Protein backbone atom coordinates (compact mmCIF):
# COMPACT_ATOMS: atom_id res chain seq x y z
CA UNK A 1 0.00 0.00 0.00
CA UNK A 2 2.78 2.38 0.90
CA UNK A 3 4.59 1.75 -2.37
CA UNK A 4 1.72 3.33 -4.25
CA UNK A 5 2.59 6.92 -3.38
CA UNK A 6 2.87 8.41 -6.88
CA UNK A 7 6.21 9.98 -7.65
CA UNK A 8 4.55 13.10 -9.02
CA UNK A 9 2.84 13.88 -5.72
CA UNK A 10 6.12 13.81 -3.83
CA UNK A 11 7.74 16.02 -6.47
CA UNK A 12 4.80 18.41 -6.28
CA UNK A 13 5.07 18.58 -2.49
CA UNK A 14 8.74 19.39 -2.77
CA UNK A 15 7.97 22.06 -5.42
CA UNK A 16 5.50 23.67 -3.01
CA UNK A 17 8.05 23.61 -0.16
CA UNK A 18 10.69 25.06 -2.50
CA UNK A 19 8.50 27.99 -3.55
CA UNK A 20 7.53 28.65 0.09
CA UNK A 21 11.24 28.81 0.89
CA UNK A 22 11.83 31.22 -2.00
CA UNK A 23 8.93 33.35 -0.73
CA UNK A 24 10.45 33.43 2.77
CA UNK A 25 13.88 34.38 1.42
CA UNK A 26 12.46 37.22 -0.69
CA UNK A 27 9.90 38.73 1.69
CA UNK A 28 11.59 38.44 5.08
CA UNK A 29 14.13 40.97 6.25
CA UNK A 30 15.31 39.35 9.48
CA UNK A 31 18.52 37.44 8.76
CA UNK A 32 17.47 34.36 10.78
CA UNK A 33 14.17 34.12 8.90
CA UNK A 34 16.03 34.21 5.59
CA UNK A 35 18.14 31.31 6.88
CA UNK A 36 14.96 29.42 7.77
CA UNK A 37 13.74 29.88 4.20
CA UNK A 38 17.01 28.42 2.96
CA UNK A 39 16.50 25.41 5.26
CA UNK A 40 13.07 24.90 3.67
CA UNK A 41 14.66 24.96 0.19
CA UNK A 42 17.26 22.38 1.26
CA UNK A 43 14.48 20.15 2.59
CA UNK A 44 12.64 20.32 -0.73
CA UNK A 45 15.80 19.27 -2.57
CA UNK A 46 16.38 16.41 -0.14
CA UNK A 47 12.81 15.20 -0.59
CA UNK A 48 13.42 14.95 -4.34
CA UNK A 49 16.62 12.98 -3.80
CA UNK A 50 14.94 10.50 -1.47
CA UNK A 51 11.91 10.16 -3.76
CA UNK A 52 14.03 9.22 -6.76
CA UNK A 53 16.25 7.01 -4.66
CA UNK A 54 13.29 4.67 -4.24
CA UNK A 55 13.41 3.91 -7.98
CA UNK A 56 17.18 3.75 -8.30
CA UNK A 57 18.35 0.49 -9.90
CA UNK A 58 21.65 0.87 -8.03
CA UNK A 59 19.84 1.14 -4.68
CA UNK A 60 19.85 4.23 -2.52
CA UNK A 61 22.39 6.51 -4.14
CA UNK A 62 19.86 9.29 -3.61
CA UNK A 63 19.60 8.58 0.10
CA UNK A 64 23.38 8.69 0.49
CA UNK A 65 23.51 11.97 -1.42
CA UNK A 66 20.78 13.41 0.82
CA UNK A 67 22.82 12.43 3.87
CA UNK A 68 25.72 14.50 2.53
CA UNK A 69 23.33 17.38 1.82
CA UNK A 70 22.19 17.25 5.46
CA UNK A 71 25.83 17.41 6.62
CA UNK A 72 26.51 20.44 4.43
CA UNK A 73 23.35 22.13 5.71
CA UNK A 74 24.46 21.62 9.31
CA UNK A 75 27.85 23.19 8.57
CA UNK A 76 26.20 26.07 6.69
CA UNK A 77 23.74 26.79 9.49
CA UNK A 78 26.48 26.86 12.15
CA UNK A 79 28.67 29.29 10.22
CA UNK A 80 25.77 31.47 9.05
CA UNK A 81 24.33 31.85 12.54
CA UNK A 82 27.77 32.72 13.93
CA UNK A 83 28.03 35.44 11.27
CA UNK A 84 24.51 36.68 12.11
CA UNK A 85 25.46 36.95 15.79
CA UNK A 86 28.62 38.94 15.00
CA UNK A 87 26.65 41.25 12.68
CA UNK A 88 24.03 41.75 15.41
CA UNK A 89 26.72 42.63 17.96
CA UNK A 90 28.28 45.10 15.53
CA UNK A 91 25.22 46.83 14.06
CA UNK A 92 22.78 46.18 16.96
CA UNK A 93 20.21 44.89 14.48
CA UNK A 94 19.62 41.75 12.45
CA UNK A 95 17.41 43.46 9.88
CA UNK A 96 19.13 43.21 6.51
CA UNK A 97 17.82 46.52 5.14
CA UNK A 98 18.92 48.43 8.24
CA UNK A 99 22.33 46.75 8.07
CA UNK A 100 22.76 47.86 4.45
CA UNK A 101 21.70 51.43 5.22
CA UNK A 102 24.01 51.60 8.27
CA UNK A 103 26.84 50.25 6.14
CA UNK A 104 26.34 53.03 3.60
CA UNK A 105 26.32 55.91 6.08
Amino acid sequence: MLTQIPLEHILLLSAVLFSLGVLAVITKRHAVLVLMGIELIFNAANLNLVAFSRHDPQLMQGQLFSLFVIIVVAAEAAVALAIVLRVYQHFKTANLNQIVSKENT
Partner: protein
Amino acid sequence: MLFYIFAALAVISGAYMVLTRNLLYAGFSLLLTLLSVAAIYVLLFADFVAVTQLMVYVGGVLVLILFGIMLSSRVHDKSVMSENVNVGWGISISLLTLIGLGYTIWQASFSSLPWIQQANTDILAGQKSTVQYIGIKLMTDFVLPFEIASLLLLIALMGAAYIATDKQKV
Protein backbone atom coordinates in the same frame (compact mmCIF):
# COMPACT_ATOMS: atom_id res chain seq x y z
CA MET B 1 -3.24 8.23 2.94
CA LEU B 2 -0.69 8.82 5.68
CA PHE B 3 1.53 10.53 3.11
CA TYR B 4 -1.15 13.12 2.28
CA ILE B 5 -1.70 13.92 5.96
CA PHE B 6 1.99 14.59 6.49
CA ALA B 7 2.25 16.46 3.18
CA ALA B 8 -0.62 18.73 4.18
CA LEU B 9 0.97 19.26 7.61
CA ALA B 10 4.30 20.19 5.99
CA VAL B 11 2.72 22.61 3.54
CA ILE B 12 0.45 24.24 6.14
CA SER B 13 3.21 24.76 8.68
CA GLY B 14 5.60 25.94 5.95
CA ALA B 15 3.01 28.46 4.80
CA TYR B 16 2.47 29.58 8.41
CA MET B 17 6.23 30.04 8.75
CA VAL B 18 6.15 32.40 5.77
CA LEU B 19 2.95 34.21 6.77
CA THR B 20 3.56 34.82 10.46
CA ARG B 21 5.47 37.90 11.52
CA ASN B 22 6.58 36.53 14.87
CA LEU B 23 10.06 35.02 14.72
CA LEU B 24 9.47 32.45 17.44
CA TYR B 25 6.23 31.20 15.86
CA ALA B 26 8.11 30.90 12.57
CA GLY B 27 10.81 28.82 14.27
CA PHE B 28 8.31 26.42 15.81
CA SER B 29 6.33 26.01 12.60
CA LEU B 30 9.61 25.22 10.83
CA LEU B 31 10.02 22.50 13.48
CA LEU B 32 6.65 21.03 12.46
CA THR B 33 7.62 21.14 8.78
CA LEU B 34 10.90 19.32 9.45
CA LEU B 35 9.12 16.67 11.54
CA SER B 36 6.56 15.97 8.83
CA VAL B 37 9.29 15.78 6.18
CA ALA B 38 11.03 13.20 8.40
CA ALA B 39 7.77 11.23 8.54
CA ILE B 40 7.56 11.32 4.74
CA TYR B 41 11.13 9.96 4.58
CA VAL B 42 10.00 7.00 6.64
CA LEU B 43 7.15 6.38 4.20
CA LEU B 44 9.70 6.41 1.34
CA PHE B 45 11.78 3.59 2.90
CA ALA B 46 14.49 5.98 4.06
CA ASP B 47 14.58 5.25 7.77
CA PHE B 48 18.22 6.24 8.31
CA VAL B 49 17.72 9.53 6.47
CA ALA B 50 14.64 10.17 8.60
CA VAL B 51 16.55 9.58 11.84
CA THR B 52 19.39 11.78 10.58
CA GLN B 53 16.86 14.46 9.72
CA LEU B 54 15.47 14.28 13.26
CA MET B 55 18.89 14.39 14.90
CA VAL B 56 20.63 16.96 12.71
CA TYR B 57 17.76 19.26 11.73
CA VAL B 58 15.41 19.12 14.68
CA GLY B 59 18.10 18.50 17.29
CA GLY B 60 20.84 20.66 15.82
CA VAL B 61 19.92 23.20 13.19
CA LEU B 62 16.60 24.19 14.72
CA VAL B 63 18.11 24.64 18.19
CA LEU B 64 20.80 26.80 16.59
CA ILE B 65 18.12 28.85 14.83
CA LEU B 66 16.13 29.33 18.05
CA PHE B 67 19.32 30.43 19.80
CA GLY B 68 19.96 32.80 16.89
CA ILE B 69 16.47 34.26 17.27
CA MET B 70 16.86 34.72 21.01
CA LEU B 71 20.34 36.23 20.77
CA SER B 72 19.63 38.49 17.82
CA SER B 73 16.41 40.10 19.01
CA ARG B 74 15.02 41.36 22.27
CA VAL B 75 12.11 39.01 22.84
CA HIS B 76 10.01 41.40 24.89
CA ASP B 77 9.81 44.30 22.50
CA LYS B 78 8.90 44.73 18.86
CA SER B 79 12.11 43.34 17.37
CA VAL B 80 10.81 39.76 17.64
CA MET B 81 8.33 40.81 14.95
CA SER B 82 9.68 41.02 11.44
CA GLU B 83 8.09 43.15 8.76
CA ASN B 84 7.51 41.82 5.26
CA VAL B 85 8.98 43.61 2.27
CA ASN B 86 8.78 42.99 -1.47
CA VAL B 87 5.52 41.10 -0.91
CA GLY B 88 4.25 41.53 -4.47
CA TRP B 89 7.54 40.54 -6.03
CA GLY B 90 8.01 37.64 -3.64
CA ILE B 91 4.56 36.18 -4.24
CA SER B 92 4.82 36.56 -8.01
CA ILE B 93 8.31 35.04 -8.19
CA SER B 94 7.46 32.09 -5.95
CA LEU B 95 4.17 31.51 -7.79
CA LEU B 96 6.06 31.53 -11.09
CA THR B 97 8.56 29.05 -9.64
CA LEU B 98 5.73 26.82 -8.42
CA ILE B 99 3.88 26.95 -11.74
CA GLY B 100 7.07 26.30 -13.69
CA LEU B 101 8.05 23.36 -11.52
CA GLY B 102 4.53 21.93 -11.52
CA TYR B 103 4.26 22.25 -15.30
CA THR B 104 7.65 20.58 -15.73
CA ILE B 105 6.71 17.72 -13.41
CA TRP B 106 3.41 17.28 -15.23
CA GLN B 107 5.05 17.38 -18.66
CA ALA B 108 7.89 15.04 -17.74
CA SER B 109 5.43 12.38 -16.48
CA PHE B 110 8.11 10.56 -14.55
CA SER B 111 5.86 7.62 -13.73
CA SER B 112 5.83 6.52 -17.38
CA LEU B 113 9.62 6.54 -17.75
CA PRO B 114 10.95 3.02 -18.35
CA TRP B 115 13.65 3.04 -15.65
CA ILE B 116 11.15 4.22 -13.04
CA GLN B 117 8.68 1.50 -13.96
CA GLN B 118 11.34 -1.20 -14.08
CA ALA B 119 12.65 -0.19 -10.68
CA ASN B 120 12.34 -2.89 -8.14
CA THR B 121 10.86 -1.34 -5.04
CA ASP B 122 10.22 -4.74 -3.53
CA ILE B 123 13.87 -5.05 -2.50
CA LEU B 124 13.58 -1.96 -0.33
CA ALA B 125 10.19 -2.96 0.99
CA GLY B 126 11.48 -6.40 1.97
CA GLN B 127 14.41 -5.06 3.94
CA LYS B 128 13.94 -4.33 7.59
CA SER B 129 16.39 -1.44 7.71
CA THR B 130 18.65 0.51 5.38
CA VAL B 131 21.32 1.11 8.01
CA GLN B 132 23.55 -1.85 7.13
CA TYR B 133 23.43 -1.08 3.43
CA ILE B 134 24.22 2.60 3.95
CA GLY B 135 27.11 1.68 6.25
CA ILE B 136 28.63 -0.65 3.67
CA LYS B 137 28.17 1.93 0.92
CA LEU B 138 29.77 4.68 3.01
CA MET B 139 32.86 2.58 3.63
CA THR B 140 33.25 1.38 0.02
CA ASP B 141 31.85 3.51 -2.80
CA PHE B 142 31.36 6.74 -0.89
CA VAL B 143 34.42 6.77 1.34
CA LEU B 144 35.97 9.89 -0.24
CA PRO B 145 32.88 12.11 0.17
CA PHE B 146 32.49 10.70 3.69
CA GLU B 147 36.00 11.80 4.68
CA ILE B 148 35.60 15.16 2.96
CA ALA B 149 32.33 15.67 4.84
CA SER B 150 34.05 15.00 8.15
CA LEU B 151 36.77 17.51 7.27
CA LEU B 152 34.12 20.05 6.21
CA LEU B 153 32.27 19.64 9.52
CA LEU B 154 35.48 20.09 11.50
CA ILE B 155 36.43 23.24 9.58
CA ALA B 156 32.90 24.66 9.75
CA LEU B 157 32.57 24.14 13.51
CA MET B 158 36.02 25.61 14.21
CA GLY B 159 35.22 28.55 11.94
CA ALA B 160 31.84 29.12 13.59
CA ALA B 161 33.39 29.06 17.06
CA TYR B 162 36.12 31.47 15.91
CA ILE B 163 33.65 33.89 14.31
CA ALA B 164 31.29 33.87 17.27
CA THR B 165 33.91 34.62 19.95
CA ASP B 166 34.17 38.17 21.15
CA LYS B 167 37.68 39.27 20.24
CA GLN B 168 37.79 42.25 22.60
CA LYS B 169 37.13 40.20 25.70
CA VAL B 170 39.43 37.26 24.98
